[in-house]
């Protein structure tokens, strides 16, 4: 079991409330002993060592840390890890299978949907939430669904194309 609080505060450990959380992350059950103030983004990155989830602004603006919590996109810098106890989390590592990219990942590759790549995991998870709900979105609907994710490189054009490409592929049309 991951114990994050011990790494943080070994000396005053007795006075600190810690709590055990059990989270299903990318289909795998994991447990951690944590402080309640630990943010979900930090548990994912530092506790579970899944560093595909990026922390960008850390102020609920940029969406780089977006993960799916029970299928819905959330900014993991704005959810306490303890709140994910008993819930299911999907990060970018949960998209691909061992041998194959997820169609959304393929789309980003084929349509050049990234430059520096920092925002990409969050973009892809917002896109997944959209396509799970609406397999045939219009360009406007894609832009709308991604409007909580900021990209400072691309101007969004190719990101939108990548999601539309993935949607077509997932419908069996590409």
């Amino acid at each position, binding site marked *: 079991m991951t114990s994050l609080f011990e790494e943080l505060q070994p000396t005053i450990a007795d006075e600190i*409330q810690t709590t055990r959380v059990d989270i299903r992350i990318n289909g795998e059950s994991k447990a951690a002993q944590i402080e*309640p*103030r630990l943010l979900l983004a930090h548990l994912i990155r530092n506790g579970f060592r899944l560093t595909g989830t990026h922390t960008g602004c850390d102020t609920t*603006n940029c969406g780089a840390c977006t993960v799916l919590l029970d299928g*819905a996109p959330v900014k993991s*810098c*704005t959810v*306490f890890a303890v709140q994910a106890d008993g819930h299911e989390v999907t990060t970018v590592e949960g998209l691909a299978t061992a041998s194959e990219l997820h169609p959304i990942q393929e789309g980003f590759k084929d349509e050049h949907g990234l430059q520096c790549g920092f925002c990409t995991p969050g973009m892809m998870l917002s896109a997944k939430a959209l396509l799970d709900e609406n397999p045939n979105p219009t360009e406007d609907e894609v832009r709308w669904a991604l409007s909580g*994710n900021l990209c400072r490189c691309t101007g969004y054009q190719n990101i939108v194309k990548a999601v539309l490409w993935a949607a077509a592929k997932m419908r069996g049309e590409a």
Partner: protein
Amino acid sequence: MYPSRFRYEAPTSIEEAIALLSSLEDAKVLAGGQSLIPMMKLRFANPANLVDINNIPDLGYHRADSDGSFRIGALCRHADLEKSKILGEHQPLLAAAAPLVADPIVRTRGTFVGSVCHADPQGDWASCMVALGGSIVAQGPSGKRTIPVKDFVSGPFTTVLAHNEIAVEAVIPPAQGTRTGGYLKLERRVGDFATAAAAVSLDMSDGVVKDAGIGLTGVGAQTINASEAAEALIGSRLEDDVVERAAELAAAATSPRGDHRGSADYKRHIISTFVSRIIANVQRAEMQVA
């Protein structure tokens, strides 16, 4: 960024949550957390205790009751309202505002009632509630009380909730006739605070305004209830000169501060434009129906 250390409780009933709030010093309710958690990370808020209400069942509803009132539970998320199948028919103003709150990711988590309780002068829902004459139902150790939103918010980021009360529900009164209205918001980009926004609610019967309300966002130290502007509309058939007068009164009710989003004059201008534009949109929609 880490918030200050706090103790965390996650009760599974409202009664248990109220008991915790009564017994704990300096406790704060955590609902969607989309304002509270950022404020805690910036150390603007440092509660010693957090009472997370997310594990309390049956608070995620929104529904129209048989008496015509509309009720929104404490854990109804913005996204629930945005995707609602019934909201547009009953509360067109709320349906217009729902997609404009924050950004799509924040909307999956943040709550309607929590947003009203946060009492940010930039909050969209408080303006809608003011326009609709809505109330908050607060539950404490001695039971429930219903507080009109215009009295509920006592200042910026401040409400009249007692330390051991939870806002369990928002209630919107029945329409007098057919309810219509709209929300317009100017923002530099999705998720930014509004430069200015206006909520207009109209209850119409045979082309006559039976009741009206106007709430304004981001143009004063708190949500503005433009009651004079709304009263100017009541009893009218939304004639051009009446609408123009109401739009002027709405702008006059504001006290905006010039900032990087625009000058005070600009914000006043937006308000008068938005109020008349919402009413024009309503009239256009009615003509299409007729």
